């Protein structure tokens, strides 16, 4: 008797196939439209001539020049490799009152620029300016 009851229940169960169809479609939709890239933003405020005087004294600023994508940066005729942790620490400690201005020559990639900015930030640099790297040569 009880066996018959359970059989009736099974017969009335909702078919799972349409459910799976819908769930698969939803799954496909979310798989195709989802983005997992963690986008972040770096502000690169573009200067207008009237604001030029607002920057700290130029003597306190230090200019770092990237010449190529060779993991090294030129600081006043001196070359520092990105991997030279001690040199970066000393550089930041000595010059943290000013702005670290990064300039780049043609051919340097955006990734190299960001790597240098990261290096400086990791070593405690307060203000790093990358906007100069995007200035047109005649505007520098």
């Amino acid at each position, binding site marked *: 008797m009880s066996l018959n009851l359970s059989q009736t229940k099974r*017969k009335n*169960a909702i078919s799972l196939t349409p459910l*799976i169809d819908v769930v698969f479609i939803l799954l496909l939709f979310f798989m195709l439209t989802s983005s997992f890239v963690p986008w*972040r933003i770096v*502000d690169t405020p573009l200067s207008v001539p009237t604001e030029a005087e607002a920057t700290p004294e130029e003597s306190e600023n230090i200019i770092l020049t990237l010449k190529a994508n060779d993991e090294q940066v030129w600081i006043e005729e001196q070359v520092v490799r990105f991997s030279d942790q001690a040199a970066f620490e000393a550089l930041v400690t000595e010059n943290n009152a000013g702005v670290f201005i990064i300039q780049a020559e043609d051919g340097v990639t955006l990734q190299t620029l960001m790597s240098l900015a990261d290096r400086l*930030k990791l070593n405690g640099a307060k203000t790093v300016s990358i906007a100069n790297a995007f200035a047109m040569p005649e505007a520098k």
Partner: protein
Amino acid sequence: MKIGQNYAARKANDDDNMVPLINVVFLMLVFFMVAGQIRKADPVPVIPPQSINDTRAATDPSIEIVLGADNSLYVDDVLFVIDDVQGYLADQFAAAIDKDGFWVQIKADGDLSLDVLRPVFNQVRLAGLTKVSLATQLERGQDDL
């Protein structure tokens, strides 16, 4: 009669076998719904530069400029020639209601040379806009720096 009963039982069993499949599919669905973010795709594939910077945009950009690795330039998903960008930006800024919150996002490929980016920044500057942000990707595994 006996055959009919067996057939009914087998049918029910077939559905039972589907339950683990549905469980897995549901789990995947929930994962993609929760972990993924739905946003419109970029007009060209862009791999942004990696950075430790963790600043998120508070608002959506007013203008989005995408620079692909093949030097193609898209402004708000439309293919542009570099010289036309200034006019477009100026027009959009003039038509904007919230001028203080107007900002431009530049999504550029990490492998792009800076001399490709300079004219783009120059066009933005010429349009009189100062709020510009560069899109980066949060770096994974910072210990290996």
